[in-house]
């Protein structure tokens, strides 16, 4: 320390500090690296403490019987065995994958179709696009409540009122074990549509128009252009949206919870997704260990599904 101070004084800079000597001692490249890492350290530290530590903690908890009150005791795989024997888990598992397998393709095809045609519309283009985007900006809970009222039986449900005007029989919607899941899925698709349309349109705009011109000169039809040019060139966008939307459906919670608060995930568990089961196990029954095991299973599913999609839709070289 003393040596550094002397050095600073000798070089004649008042208030010579360790930084100057630090700067003198290291190369430009090293200094830049130190700067970069000192900026990166903050988010990394943040992520490590806020994200990764709890994640590892959850893995550990899934092997315990922690109930918040008593100290956690390791119980091996008991939570997982219980989970795989639990009929409710399999029902919830099936529901979650129904949301995923039916919801993702429908939402993507709809979003693409709308984006494809909206791209050609010039009349009130921005206004229409804003209309589609609006639901994405609205709070999920608020939308869920509006839809919940839409779906009510007469005399208050708007959809059923329209049905009765048209002479269509009344539908129970969220009061039915067969229709409830799809009724909720529709609202989730509708809510995410705006975002997907915007991304698809950005993808469509990014395709150089020269390709289309060349194709038209060669006499390709619209269908062939779509199949041979638009879709293949849109692949990065599609991959992103497939992964994004799948994760969204696997984690669906807000819509279901808010549309079924007086019988969460009901009727008869027919709409309950995995996340809602985790929530109830953890914060209604306080079975934290069991809930952690469910979380680990969800984590694994998300990981597998994401990797699988990236692999299937990978760029073939």
């Amino acid at each position, binding site marked *: 320390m003393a040596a550094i101070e002397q050095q600073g004084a000798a070089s004649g800079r008042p208030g010579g500090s360790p930084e100057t000597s630090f700067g003198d001692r290291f190369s430009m490249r090293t200094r830049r690296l130190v700067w970069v890492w000192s900026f990166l350290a903050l988010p990394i530290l943040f992520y490590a403490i806020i994200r990764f530590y709890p994640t590892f903690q959850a893995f550990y908890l899934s092997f315990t019987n922690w109930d918040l*009150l008593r100290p956690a005791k390791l119980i091996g795989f008991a939570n997982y065995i219980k989970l795989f024997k639990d009929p409710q888990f399999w029902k919830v598992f099936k529901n979650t994958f129904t949301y995923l397998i039916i919801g993702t393709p429908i939402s993507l095809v709809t979003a693409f179709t709308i984006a494809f045609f909206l791209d050609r519309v010039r009349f009130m283009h921005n206004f229409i696009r804003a209309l589609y985007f609006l639901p994405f900006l609205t709070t999920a809970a608020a939308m869920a409540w509006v839809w919940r009222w839409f779906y009510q039986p007469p005399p*208050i449900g708007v959809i059923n009122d329209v049905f009765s005007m048209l002479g269509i029989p*009344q539908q129970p919607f969220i009061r039915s074990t067969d229709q409830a899941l799809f009724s909720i899925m529709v609202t989730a698709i509708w809510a995410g549509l705006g975002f997907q349309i915007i991304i698809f349109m950005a993808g469509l705009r990014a395709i150089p128009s020269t390709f289309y011109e060349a194709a038209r000169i060669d006499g390709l039809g619209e269908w062939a252009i779509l199949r041979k040019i638009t879709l293949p060139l849109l692949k990065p966008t599609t991959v992103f949206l497939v992964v994004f939307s799948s994760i969204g459906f696997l984690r669906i919670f807000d819509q279901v919870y808010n549309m079924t608060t*007086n019988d969460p995930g009901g009727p008869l568990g027919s709409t309950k997704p995995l996340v809602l089961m985790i929530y109830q196990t953890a914060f209604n029954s306080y079975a934290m260990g069991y809930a952690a095991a469910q979380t680990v299973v969800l984590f694994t599913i998300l990981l597998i599904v994401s990797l699988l999609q990236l692999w299937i839709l990978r760029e073939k070289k």
Partner: protein
Amino acid sequence: MRKATLFAGLVAGFSTFAFNAAQAVEIEYWQYVFDTRVKAMDQLITEFQKANPGITVKQVTFPYADYQTRVIAANMAGNGPDVMQLFYGWLDKFVAGGLLAPLPKDAFPHAKIESDFFPIVKAMKRGDEYYGLPTAVRSLALFYNKKLFTEAGLDPNNPPKTLDEYVAAAQKIAKRDASGNLTVEGSTLDMGGQDHQWWREVLIRQFGGVPYTDNDQKVAYNSEAGIKALKFYTSLQLEKKIGAAGFMDEGQAAFRGGKAGMTIDGTFRLGAFKSIKDFEWGVTELPANAQGVRSNYASYFANGISAKAKGEELEASKKFLAYITSPAAMDIWLKTVGELPALRSAALTETNLKDPIYAPFLKGLEYAHTTLFMDEQAQRQNAIDMANRVLLQGQSVEDSIKQAAAAEQEIIDAAKP
């Protein structure tokens, strides 16, 4: 001489200071956020501090959804409340976790508790110890819409007294449009509301059974009485068609909207129904069965002393608990929150018994039962599912009861500490 006086003064000054220091105790009281409850507690604390100058009480509140987790987490961190409010159904969990101290017998003798409070206070007893006392209690009653009664040709001052009269009145009130859709319910059917309590503690008993045995640890409704009770309940929608589950989303919403003739609900709904402007409503006791058997479900939030309160804080907590469970405090609570006093002497006053709204609830308290839930949410869900299997999937009542009883037994066993 002057020095001596000064010294004496100093000594005196120090001793009063020391005396004050010994007396100045701060204790924390925790409850969940509900506007009128917080206001009532503020008022009680002011009164208490006036009477006990050495003690300050700090009220700490949390949103209801977080409350239990907060209490438990604070206990783990070692800085919980001294006196806390808890739902009676959480007691097993709180006792097992060592959150609560048994009430000291010198300040709260058992004989006095049992003679002065309504019998449902027993739900706060585990083994030989009481772990808390309520300020106020809640019970159920039948709310009815006087306007719809008059329109249906019924006497609005003579609400149904028996289950048969209840069904008959509801059938007269229920209205349907040309295509058969319900437009006005005779009575609401909402298992997710209070109907599961009605079925569990009232209907099963009226059909001659009991919902549980062994301190509510053994499910006993897979019986003839249980089947009859569920048949009666589901027939209200399926055969007698007095209402439909899910009509206007929730039973209380249908009643509030003037689209339901009757609904079964608790004292805690009084506040919400008081703002109804479109029609007059009344309250009556839950209907009796043909033999005149009545029952009711009562519940309450109790106040307990934390296991960590020691020494002066414990003494102060005892005084505070004694005050908030006194008749004077209950009177303030009734006026501010609208919940019924938990002490017989404070509840069954002439004014209260003459009150057309409080009286039916108070009568219900005399014969009310309190389910000792192990996992309230899961047990409620189980009852909802039981009814839905019959209403939506056409399962037979017998099978649904059997399935529900097995599932609930599993829930209870899993939640046992």
